[in-house]
């Protein structure tokens, strides 16, 4: 249950930070900013969905985490780590060939990592884990 509460707290913090960002921005938003907001909301919504699923499991008297969910999370972490390495190599390429601000590159990289994690978790969750 503790981990479920932590998921909700982190989601709330991310949304609050994004709200602050929107409130403190003086200039109008560029399409890239709006895309970043959309991805942040998508990833946060995904975290909230996981939290709600865990609460539903707890309500049914089942554990919020078990060996399968832990294995899925471990495999997701491994996959997304490798994919993120390639993402950062791509970001270095982008930095050398396009005139992007460092903040934009870092922000895109971090959001890209979150998207990679989300996609890996979904794919592994659908395919399942076979040891053989």
């Amino acid at each position, binding site marked *: 249950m503790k981990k479920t509460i932590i998921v909700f707290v982190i989601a709330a913090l991310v949304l609050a930070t994004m709200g602050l960002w929107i409130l403190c921005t003086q200039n109008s938003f560029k399409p890239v900013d709006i895309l970043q907001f959309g991805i942040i909301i998508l990833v946060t919504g995904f975290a909230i969905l996981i939290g709600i699923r865990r609460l539903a*499991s707890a309500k*049914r*008297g*089942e*554990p*919020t*985490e*078990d*060996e*399968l*969910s832990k294995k899925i999370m471990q495999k997701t972490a491994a996959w997304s780590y490798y994919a993120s390495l390639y993402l950062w190599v791509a970001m270095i390429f982008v930095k050398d060939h396009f005139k992007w601000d460092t903040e934009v590159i870092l922000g895109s990289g971090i959001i890209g990592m979150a998207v990679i994690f989300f996609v890996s978790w979904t794919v592994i969750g659908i*395919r*399942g*884990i*076979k*040891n*053989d």
Partner: protein
Amino acid sequence: MTNRIKELRARHNLTQDELARKVNVRRETIVFLEQNKYNPSLRLAHDIAGVFSMTIEEVFLMD
């Protein structure tokens, strides 16, 4: 590896929820097991076989 969980669960009139609670896992894990998308740990295989009062070899079959 395949298993007979779905067949045995029906024979014992157990729902996926009930079996999940008996072996202390989430219902999704039982769904994945029945679809042969997950090979359980030895501990979980032992617990599931125990619910049906069978041995692991009788529930989980090697291809």
